[in-house]
């Protein structure tokens, strides 16, 4: 098996092996009652694909959450984001989709009401900084609402421009604020 790393007993790992090890944590940001959270310069040529992990994403008002890509000039607010997702609760499956609007909607979050309400999950962002390619994401969330119903969310989207994206922002919807912890990882090629 040629796939690195080559772990050999009692032998130090070399850089070439470590550099090829799976996911690499780029950052972790915890935020409380924010209107917007920016992740700047997190998409680089070091990686082609990224995992964005959301831990206990909450909002003060129920809303489809907003994720918008960034380039060197800041937020990309053009209508080039398309999202599709399904929510399963019990035996009911509800579809959600947008046409080309100004942001991704990876998940819905119910109005926060204690520890029971929130959403945790991830999206994998594919090739956001690769020139000449569209940016896609796919992910999943586990979310609960105030009735403690559990929703299984499968989510996907495409940003249909070949813009070289260098980061992303989470933006509250309406007058709500958002809280949570986000970790960004890069996938080694």
């Amino acid at each position, binding site marked *: 098996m040629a796939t690195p790393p080559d772990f050999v007993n009692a032998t130090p790992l070399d850089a070439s092996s470590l550099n090829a090890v799976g996911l690499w944590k780029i950052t972790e940001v915890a935020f409380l009652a924010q209107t917007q*959270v920016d992740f700047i310069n997190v998409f680089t040529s070091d990686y082609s694909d990224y995992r964005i992990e959301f831990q206990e994403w909450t909002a003060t008002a129920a809303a489809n959450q907003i994720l918008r890509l960034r380039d060197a000039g800041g937020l990309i607010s053009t209508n080039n984001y398309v999202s599709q997702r399904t929510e399963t609760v019990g035996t009911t499956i509800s579809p959600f989709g947008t046409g080309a609007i100004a942001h991704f909607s990876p998940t819905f979050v119910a109005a926060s009401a204690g520890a029971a309400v929130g959403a945790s999950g991830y999206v994998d962002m594919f090739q956001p900084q690769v020139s000449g390619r569209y940016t896609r994401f796919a992910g999943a969330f586990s979310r609960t609402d105030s009735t403690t119903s559990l929703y299984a969310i499968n989510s996907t989207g495409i940003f249909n421009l070949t813009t070289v994206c260098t980061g992303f922002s989470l933006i509250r*919807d309406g007058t709500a604020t958002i809280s949570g912890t986000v970790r960004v990882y890069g996938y080694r090629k």
Partner: protein
Amino acid sequence: MDTENKPQITIYDNATGVTTVRDMTFEELEQAQPIKYKYDYQTPSDSVDTAAQ
């Protein structure tokens, strides 16, 4: 606008590794929510513009 309700932004810049938290500027709000913010955060200076929407 109540100080406690001022929109805040958290910014992480991977180039410096620094995370900052501060109040958002009006321009940042406009860029983030170009339609909604006008209704959510009216100030005397933009009330005329809002009324014209």
